[in-house]
């Protein structure tokens, strides 16, 4: 499995400075650099690609508002993803308020079709994936964020800590609890 390209990679600081000066072209470069990784993260956190696209839109408006507050001593990627994760949390909170349980995963129509593969195999793989996704969506947000950053986006503990602004010990315990939670949910599904 290829590593998500450009996830938690530092962008050229001159682009950030251009954004801070208010150059819209700088924001476009930021969008092209971080757009896909952040949308990918949004899909896993929100469970919906349309909502992840909306998140991307909101995120860049937020970045435009806040970019002057960014101080260069912290990694820009951590600052950027922190805002993205917080926006995801806001959306999840709003969703919880709207309805107690809501889950849509439009992955099927986006899944790459493999014509050589046996369709029955494909179906069972998709079913398994769906089961894991459904279970993952039930893991509490704080653990899910850590799990996704670690397992899907291949972030190190330090990077997760920088994004979520928590200590390494907290990252370690959240990951452990998240895995434990997911393990129980997957076992329940099998039974």
């Amino acid at each position, binding site marked *: 499995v290829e590593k998500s390209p450009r996830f938690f990679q530092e962008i050229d600081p001159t682009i950030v400075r251009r954004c801070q000066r208010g150059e819209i072209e700088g924001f476009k470069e930021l969008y092209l650099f971080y757009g896909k990784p952040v949308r990918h993260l949004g*899909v896993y956190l929100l469970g919906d690609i349309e909502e992840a696209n909306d998140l991307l839109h909101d995120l860049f408006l937020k970045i*435009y508002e806040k970019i002057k507050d960014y101080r260069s001593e912290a990694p820009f990627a951590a600052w950027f993803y922190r805002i993205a994760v917080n926006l995801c949390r806001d959306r999840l909170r709003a969703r919880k308020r709207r309805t107690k349980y809501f889950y849509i995963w439009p992955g099927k129509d986006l899944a*790459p079709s493999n014509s050589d593969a046996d369709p029955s195999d494909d179906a069972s793989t998709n079913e398994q994936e769906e089961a894991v996704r459904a279970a993952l969506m039930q893991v509490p947000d704080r653990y899910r964020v850590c799990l996704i950053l670690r397992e899907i986006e291949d972030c190190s503990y330090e990077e997760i800590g920088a994004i979520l602004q928590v200590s390494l010990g907290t990252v370690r315990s959240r990951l452990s609890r998240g895995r434990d939670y997911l393990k129980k949910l*997957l076992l329940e599904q099998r039974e």
Partner: protein
Amino acid sequence: MKLNRSLHIWPTNLSGYLDGEISPVKSRRIERHLAKCQACTATLDGLRRVQVALYAMKASRTSWNAPLPSWAAIEVELHSRPMPAPFFVRYGLQMAGAAGSALLLAFALYYYLPRSAPPADMAVARFEPSDLYQYVGDRLFAPEKVLLGDTVAIRPELEEAVFPEKVYFHDRNFS
């Protein structure tokens, strides 16, 4: 099942071991323990299964190849908004005003609120650290009794006996 911490590896450490995010010394200790403990091996296998399940989900990468939404919509919106100033410039004046008001309120409370005072029939004297171990009548007052506060009260009937020697003690000593 309640995990006995003294006999088994704590799940947080197992999770860290799985990620290779613990020290080599700790890692070797865990490996030695895993070689002889079935319960911990089973826990680790469960964690591995979770990791494999997530890995399989990552492999499909359904959303990665989907095209990004058009930049134009965001660009139009960005052009229509003025870029806000940094936080401290935007809210500096309000924050300074709030801090000033709080300070003013604290001073006002300090100077104008009535403070606890000794009963009217007691004279008030300031504590001085040198005035220790002194007699009042036939009673010797130890430093810890004198050091109960920086303001002490003295009964009027003792005042004459005390002053000008300045013997101070807390009014609790009279009871």
